[in-house]
């Protein structure tokens, strides 16, 4: 590593214990939700209800990742909605195309 003559004075702050604890809590929630998904995968028969449960739990996980890890919850409202509104249209598109698929079978 090259040594620089003008190394800046850096004040290192101590770890924010509360914030770090919160991050591990979010990680724990993500793990638990995934575990619940596994339980449903092996104890419940496949069908619309099970698929709906999977989708709902996935949205919960996505909300935690985007909201907490990506920090979107704490950004300004304009930024929050400019990301979220297009995503809502994607969900609509997914529902519409799956509906089309069910009604236009290949076999």
């Amino acid at each position, binding site marked *: *590593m*090259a040594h*620089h003559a*003008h*190394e*800046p004075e*850096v*004040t*290192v*702050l*101590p*770890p*924010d214990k509360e*914030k*770090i604890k919160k*991050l*591990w809590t979010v*990680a724990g929630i*993500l*793990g638990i939700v*995934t575990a619940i*998904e*596994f339980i449903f*995968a*092996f104890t419940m028969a*496949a069908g619309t209800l099970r*698929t709906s449960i*999977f*989708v709902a*739990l*996935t949205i919960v*996980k*996505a909300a935690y*990742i*985007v909201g907490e*890890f*990506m*920090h979107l919850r*704490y*950004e*300004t409202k*304009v*930024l929050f909605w*400019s*990301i979220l509104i*297009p*995503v809502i249209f*994607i969900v609509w*598109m*997914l529902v519409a*195309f*799956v*509906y*089309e*698929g*069910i009604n*236009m*079978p*290949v*076999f």
Partner: protein
Amino acid sequence: MAHSTATAVSGKSVWDGGDSPMNASYGKLMMWFFLLSDAFTFSGLLITYGLVRSSHQAYEGLVKDFTFSTEYWPIPEKVFEAVPFLHGYELPLVFVGIMTFILIMSSVTMVLAVEAGHRMDRKAVEKWMLWTIVGGLTFLGCQAWEWTHFIVGTDTPTIVKDFVNGQWITKEVTGANLHINQYGPQPFADFFFFITGFHGFHVFSGVLLNFLIYYNTVTGVYERRGHYEMVEKVGLYWHFVDLVWVFVFTFFYLV
């Protein structure tokens, strides 16, 4: 944090520059909109998967009696049931569960690196970035194994119809490629390669970016710059990769 990097010059019109309307720096804002457009691409793949899958016949019968056939869409837990070094054991979705865990953990180490960057703690940023890179590489290794297993196939072949030299023939097939596969209708294997491949390529790019950030941290680039915003920006990308995996996991492996 958005506030630490946002710039606002007082006494100037909003249109003269120097002002961040969304209270986030230019770089972070552009990363957000890039990720939104990337989400459109992944949605395109997953929506097409939903359309094609729902237009195929679903397997109706007991899960334990399931056999591979091109007549109906396979049950994912019957396709992905192998774990490295445990040949012959049926362990449905165990390996993909491990992969999910690895990616979530590397997302946590990334967010800890971002937190350390806010505190200008170079040593901690280095440590957590390194763990994130290790997590990313482990995931890629797992995916390489999973692909190999998917391509090579199971011990018992499936009878599949194929169109050769102008006529339909039946033949025994093990494994999968983009032309023929033993697991079910051809689009099943095609979507597997495209969706997990596209995601895996994102992980690969993420590992490269993470390494670049790690390198710049070690050489003190961000310390001289006075902030670790690049860690945040690449962190956003890395979390997005994790987010996509959450959806791939649900739609490809669970449903």
